[in-house]
């Protein structure tokens, strides 16, 4: 490398990433587990369970991704501020 690798972020705290990882994994695995919802009853407003159950996962996923966004971006901001604080401090003449 012709220029040094200056870190853009300070080391991570693992907590927020692990929690978001679990939330996102739920949002992927549960809607794909077909045996859990491949039935007609109970219907909702005439709609078979198979259809309304999957539709209702759409807002749930949106919430799970939203929570992950909040967790990760908060930690991301902290890492960035801490990394930039260090470089400016060292870079002062």
């Amino acid at each position, binding site marked *: *490398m*012709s*220029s040094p*690798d*200056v*870190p*853009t*972020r300070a080391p991570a705290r693992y907590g927020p990433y692990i929690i978001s990882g679990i939330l*996102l*994994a739920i*949002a*992927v695995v549960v*809607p*794909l*587990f*077909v*045996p859990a919802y*491949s*039935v*007609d009853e109970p*219907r909702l*407003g*005439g*709609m*078979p369970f*198979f*259809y309304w159950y*999957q*539709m209702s*996962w*759409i*807002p749930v*996923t*949106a919430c*799970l*991704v*939203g929570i*992950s*966004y909040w967790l*990760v*971006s908060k930690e*991301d901001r902290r*890492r*960035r501020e801490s990394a930039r604080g260090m470089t400016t401090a060292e870079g002062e003449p």
Partner: protein
Amino acid sequence: MIGASVPLAVGDRPINGVALTIVIILFVVVAALGFVAARWRREEATGLHSLDEWGLGGRGFGTWVTWFLLGGDLYTAYTFVAVPAAMWATGAVSGFFAVPYTIVLYPIVFLLMSRLWSVSHRHGFVTPADFVGGRYGSKALTVAVAVTGIVATMPYIALQLVGIKAVLTVLGLGSAENVLLTDLPLIIAFVVLAAYTYTSGLRAPALIAVVKDLLIYLAVIVAVIYLPIKFGGWGTIFDAAEAKLGAVNPATGKPAGVFIPGAGSYSAYWTLALGSALALFMYPHSITGVLATKSRNTIRKNAAVLPLYSLMLGFLALLGYAAIYAGTKPIDLNGAVNPQLVVPQLFLDHFPDWFAGIALAAIAIGALVPAAIMSIAAANLFTRNIYRDLIRPDAKPRQEAKVSKIASLVVKFGALIFVIAMDQSAAINMQLLGGIWILQTFPAIVAGLYTRWFHRWALFGGWAAGIIYGTVAAYNVVNPVTKANFGGSIAAIPGTDLQVYIAVVAFAINLIVAAVLSLAFRAMKLPDGKDITRSSDYGADEDDPKVAEIQREYPLGEPGAPAF
């Protein structure tokens, strides 16, 4: 579809004047917007004379614009036509899988795309193949990714034309006898599209997407509330669908479709959803939408709000069932049944002409947005990864923009000829293959975002293995009625009875080959390519300086660079 269908000469439809007028007015408004877009947020000093400006809209789209742009880009007109058509014809497995597909998509996007954004921001990458080139320093792998992207995108553009065609047919434009007259409106629409894409670049679809998405939401919300009330509730609609899909087809001796998947279809259903979700953001037009955003977090924020489109798609899919209850007759110009006409016909049958006009215009404009973005994305791939990497390594940004503009025209007219000259089913087959092929670029692109463990030539080997298996397996699927090859995208895993999406098996083969070859090549100490990225690049945000501004460095561009 195939030549065997008997032309009954009953196909000529009356022209619906009111609906047609509304479609034409909205089309003109949108075309004007497309040209005006050239002046939107433009840097006066540079104009649109670089790929960053022409091909990525200045890399400055915020959360709102991106929401409309990606919504218009991913949920294409063909989706709006094909998903309800599949529900109408064969039910849940081939149609409703679109719902879990567009659910599991967003966690995946959340994980992957901000890293790709960061490294592309730092190094000025415009295409996924740019990233692969910078990461692995392998021409073969870069070109493989670029060519796969272009080849997979072309039929996708052609399918957008199929979507417009469905609308025009239902409106009464076209006749069974005069082929040129039938295709003329399509040709005009496409010439206008090509012209404003050429002048305005990605800004045109971004601006048009706002209009298109608002129209589509309006049409779907009204239809989803009004039609069930008119037909006596969802219960009667679903009962009619269950009866139709359960009826035995005399040609195959099997039920016509699947109302609720039985145990035998579970694996097909979830692999279709997962494979499609993994593949979608490997398509160049999706990545173009991501790289056009302003900041690292824009795409993550959008991963939480884009599912609103999935909800709309889910309801739209159910309109396929509503059409079963309503007895909609999607008869094409040649007198044959064409399921793709189901949704346009449903709107025309059950709404006042002016509202049907708005809904049909929404579908037609909905084809223009993705077609524009796809042609830009394919053109960028050609410019960056074929023209620059292979022909003119010293191409200046201005030259790149010029080449890309012309390439976008070539791509669009290629798609137009495809649709006019060849059978519609050819475009559909190619699109099916395209989905299988594009997933084979996943290991090179995504693994590279996290690790360089895979060897560049091993990734190339895996890509080739996946493409070959996927193509052969798709060819061997025979349509039970027409006996044609490429009859679907589901096949048994070799050696088992488990029916799954072919792309997923090809992807697994790809990964295994890439891993085994990586171990072998590392043991043989074959050279690694030059990697210009650093671990810090993958976490950089919009406030970090661009590496490309400090040093212009690209391994494939250096004289005497490794050729393979």
